[in-house]
């Protein structure tokens, strides 16, 4: 285990931020280019994980456990969100026979 932790020493913090930013942006892109509600959901998970990673990195860097506790909470939240979200999707699918978000444009003027 020591070796594993040693191997990480020396990676600039910036690169963690960069990685999180890239993953986050990929999540955003996913939301933008896909129409399948489930894929969009997954993209959101991607974004959440990007944030989690950053939390952890900073937590480790600062030696503060609060960051990791937050990640824990985010995960709990993600679980709840996924449960509800998927339930909604199932519901929608049952009504429209589709998970295409372009069909769901009733919320307009």
């Amino acid at each position, binding site marked *: 285990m020591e070796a594993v932790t040693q191997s990480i020493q020396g990676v600039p913090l910036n690169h963690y931020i960069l990685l999180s930013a890239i993953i986050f942006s990929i999540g*955003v892109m996913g*939301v*933008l280019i896909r*129409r399948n509600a489930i894929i969009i959901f997954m993209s959101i998970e991607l974004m959440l994980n990007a944030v989690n990673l950053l939390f952890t990195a900073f937590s480790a860097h600062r030696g503060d456990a609060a960051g990791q506790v937050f990640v824990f909470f985010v995960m709990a939240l993600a679980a709840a969100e996924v449960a509800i979200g998927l339930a909604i999707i199932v519901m929608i699918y049952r009504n429209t026979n589709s998970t295409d*978000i*372009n069909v*769901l*444009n*009733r*919320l*307009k*003027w």
Partner: protein
Amino acid sequence: MINLVWLIPLFPLIGFLINGLGRSFLPKGAVGFIGSLTVFLSFAVSLGIFFELNGSVTKSFTIQLFDWIQVGNLSIPFSFQVDPLSSLMLLIVTGIGFLIHVYSIGYMHHDTGFAKFFSYLNLFVFFMLLLVLGSNYVVMFIGWEGVGLCSYLLIGFWFSNPAYASAAKKAFVMNRIGDLGFLIAIFLIFNTFNSVEFAKVFPQAASLTAGSDVITLITILLFVGATGKSAQIPLFTWLPDAMAGPTPVSALIHAATMVTAGIYMIARSNILFTLAPFTLDIIAVVGLATAILAALIAITQTDIKKVLAYSTVSQLGYMFLGLGVGAYTGAFFHVITHAFFKALLFLGAGSVIHAVSNEQDMRSMGGLKSKLPVTFYTMLMGTIAISGLPPFSGFFSKDEILAHAYEHSKLLWLIGVIGAMFTAFYMFRMLFLTFFGKFRGTTEQQAHLHESPASMTFPLIVLAVLSIIGGFIGVPEALHGNHWLAGFLEPVFSASEQRTGASHLDHSTEYILMTVSVIAAVVASFIAYLRYARNNHVPVPDTAERTAFANVSYNKFYIDEIYDALITKPLNILSGFFYRIVDKTFIDGFVNGLGRATAEAGKGLRLLQTGNIGFYIFIMIAGIVALLVYGFYNI
């Protein structure tokens, strides 16, 4: 006695209140009695004041009643001034006013608005007395506008006739045009002299140099005010229309008193005008032009009251001519004599109208001499007086004005004499058409012909006597008189006379001038006699062809039509234009347009709300990017 001067306007005010409030239950006799009595009481007090003033060394008294308007350094007390000028005017207003009240008892007896008439008449006397007595321009202005109001009420007395109501409105509005000039003049006076009190303004003015811009402007504005009230060009057209009122009103307001207010005001402010020679020239020219124009119109009129109305305008023009050439005493002298004979003529005309069942067209009269002897002889006196035949009153006053005009400019005098000729002509024309020849009215009217009751003939006789002898208060030196009037008014006009210098016409010139004007008048009346009494010429009916000149004159030079086309119509069009185009379409359209634009913008922006989640996220991302860019690069 002078301290009781506030009683003079108070009496008519009380009369107005009693008659006004009690008009529904007071009997006619009581109304007439109260109305006349109050004015008579005022006359009595005026007489007392006149004699006291005549014997007094001090010639000017100011009696302050209460502070009226007080703002900063502007202080306008409600106060009265008694001096020779106002005391004489008081006598005229209350004296003639009393006679006309008495006359009205008979004349208006059958009218349902008897009490209303007397209350208005009393109110008029009240305002007229305020005008005369005011010791500053603002109190004078109260009376000035107040008489305008009463004139409005009395012209429109028979308001059921729309034409009469319009005439009343016209009179009020035209007066108001002049009043605005007067009002601005008051502001100018206050600004220049820091006071509007006569007693403070005139001494200050006397020390100013002649012809300064301020004085010229003040006097021109005052004169504008006077043209409105005294019916001069260009504001004279209301006066003939004002004949819509009952005849006593025409006699009192539109002949004897109110219309001379302009002359009174200028005479009162004589020192200001003397300092503005330019304005005086304007006044003289305007006065003379009015005199001639009105005389030309009067020649062809067939309505007996219209003739007298134009004659009044013309005589007022003479008075302004007198003022314009510096003959303040002469002008005021003419005010007095004119009050006598014109009131007489109007009342006589009223008596005639009364007799022929409210017919006013002279073409339907004639031959009334035998039926209405008192009326005829008194009106004859009046006609002679106005024509300027000696030794009747009009001769002296008109002659004094013409003499001064001659001194000023021979051309003015010449035109004035021609005007006097016209005067004699149309007055005698009226007299002959009315009283000579055969009766031309319906048989019904003929059966009804009768002399007026005593309450109407009594004032006629008194006024006739005054018309005959009234001139003797101002017999010129050339005729071995001592001109009592000039002496009496000397304190009022002394400052002006010091500047203009005394008259320097020699007596022989004066004789020539008198002779010329008398001959002119005699010739004119003789022509009228030949044409209307001997040859029984009767003016043609309205439908008949006239010569070009007669047509223009008969139609009053189309001045009403010109005003209508130049002022009334464009204003009405402008009003419609402002209302429909500027207000409704433009301004309101802009306001409504703002509202509509907001609604339209909302409709447009609503389309952004597509309901497409992808689009929302897209916009959200764009927003995040923008915020980040803004936050980190401080763009």
